[in-house]
């Protein structure tokens, strides 16, 4: 098995050697990977670490407040609202791979700007093994690996060789809160890969509302810990419906809920039907733009966990 205390010890030692007395920024998303990294780096270099949390306009309902509240007092913390910059760069872009690459590039632009302000030489990222395995295999480009040439920041990735279940063990050893450790994984490109096709504020808002309903119901029914991820995808497909005797032509939303340990393989478990039905009913009644909800039942492989 993994030996968490040994990993932590060695990791802090390596980081000290690598970063020395220089300053570093960490790309903090509030997820378990970057949170664990922030603790390791802080242990190693103390106040020379500045955490940068970027709002790319593709976050979930309530996420900005949640992350700011969790980290503001623990770290040197900077919140950057770059949503306009990201959404402008993504304007008119349909292809998910192109979206991922653009987001990766804008992230680096933002981080380089922030690093320059405080003269940081290092960028810490919470990249884990499945990220680079999928990028190298050309399955999908992970936002944190689309590093542009000519980048001046040196990248430090303390948990690069680990899988998320191992990062969670490290998090437990570091006494992070359970809600942080078992926080549902959320992709770096955020809702950009859950809204299929060209993005718009309207579509992002529909996806955000649907995702919020899924999260509320899954947590209320205590099945969040049985699932690796649970979310709603807003497709680009419109379908015919009937509401109050009137024709309706609205969006198709797909529910995706999978079980996994390391994201390398995942399956769709048997879900309580009443929960699935409640989610479907709430989405179509609370979000008037949605006419139809379907449930995805494909495993990984051959599908991936995210849609795009």
């Amino acid at each position, binding site marked *: 098995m*993994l030996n968490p205390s040994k990993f932590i010890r060695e990791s802090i030692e390596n980081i000290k050697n690598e970063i020395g007395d220089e300053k570093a920024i960490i790309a903090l998303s509030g997820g378990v990977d970057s949170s664990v990294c922030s603790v390791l780096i802080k242990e190693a270099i103390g106040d020379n670490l500045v955490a940068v949390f970027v709002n790319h306009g593709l976050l979930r309902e309530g996420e900005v407040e949640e992350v700011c509240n969790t980290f503001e007092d623990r770290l040197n913390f900077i919140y950057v609202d770059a949503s306009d910059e990201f959404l402008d760069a993504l304007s008119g872009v349909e292809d998910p791979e192109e979206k991922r690459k653009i987001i990766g590039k804008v992230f680096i632009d933002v981080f380089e700007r922030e690093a320059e302000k405080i003269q940081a030489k290092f960028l810490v990222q919470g990249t884990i093994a499945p990220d680079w395995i999928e990028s190298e*295999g050309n399955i999908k480009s992970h936002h944190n690996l689309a590093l542009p040439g000519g980048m001046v920041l040196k990248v430090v990735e303390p948990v690069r060789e680990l899988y998320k279940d191992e990062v969670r063990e490290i998090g437990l050893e570091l006494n992070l809160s359970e809600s942080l450790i078992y926080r549902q994984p959320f992709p770096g490109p955020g809702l950009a890969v859950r809204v299929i096709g060209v993005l718009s504020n309207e579509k992002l808002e529909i996806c955000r509302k649907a995702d919020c309903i899924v999260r509320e119901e899954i947590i209320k029914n205590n099945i969040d810990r049985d699932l690796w991820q649970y979310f709603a995808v807003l497709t680009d497909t419109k379908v015919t419906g009937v509401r109050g005797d009137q024709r309706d032509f609205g969006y198709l939303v797909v529910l995706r809920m999978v079980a996994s340990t390391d994201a390398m393989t995942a399956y769709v478990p048997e879900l309580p039907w009443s929960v699935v039905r409640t989610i479907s009913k709430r989405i179509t009644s609370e979000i008037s733009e949605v006419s139809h909800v379907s449930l995805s039942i494909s*495993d990984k492989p051959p599908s991936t966990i995210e849609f795009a």
Partner: protein
Amino acid sequence: MKIIIINNKGQYNHRIGRTLRYLEIPSEIVSNELSFEEIAKKDPIGIIFGGGPSIDEAGNSLEYINKINDINIPVLGICLGHQLLAKFFGGDVSNSPTESYAQIEIDIIKDDLLFNEIETPMKVWTSHKDEVKTLPNDFEILAKSTLCDIEAMKHKKKNIYGVQFHPEVYHTPQGEIIFKNFHDICLENLN
């Protein structure tokens, strides 16, 4: 005293390393672009050929198999690695009529050290488009499933094994035992 894992660029190759690390078996993942001499210098006690997207990306794997065939060192081929072994020894590899991506059950049909202490039927994870259609000369079938006749095979006279499924992933619950058994085979071979 380590096992060398040939990285054939499959999604799960890094997980083979993790599984061996958890078993405290020394191992190293290496690129399939190395020369055989560079691999031999590492003094492996066994070699695992990982899976991968296609034979075109298997680098020097076929050359390694050719050289290993002359020396006495245990080999385990996984998915593409299994298919490369079949191809080298004269078997037939082609598209499977039903592409298989799922947890399936295999029947272990022959007692062998590789499946020591594993009960049949065994739940395994598969992810492949191609399969071994005809068994190479001097090989025997160790396990089969309703989807694929050759889920595992072994050379009759040498410690050369191939498995079509993925023992290294989480959704093959007893997969770890296969690596432990393979390591035992490697140790026994040293003596």
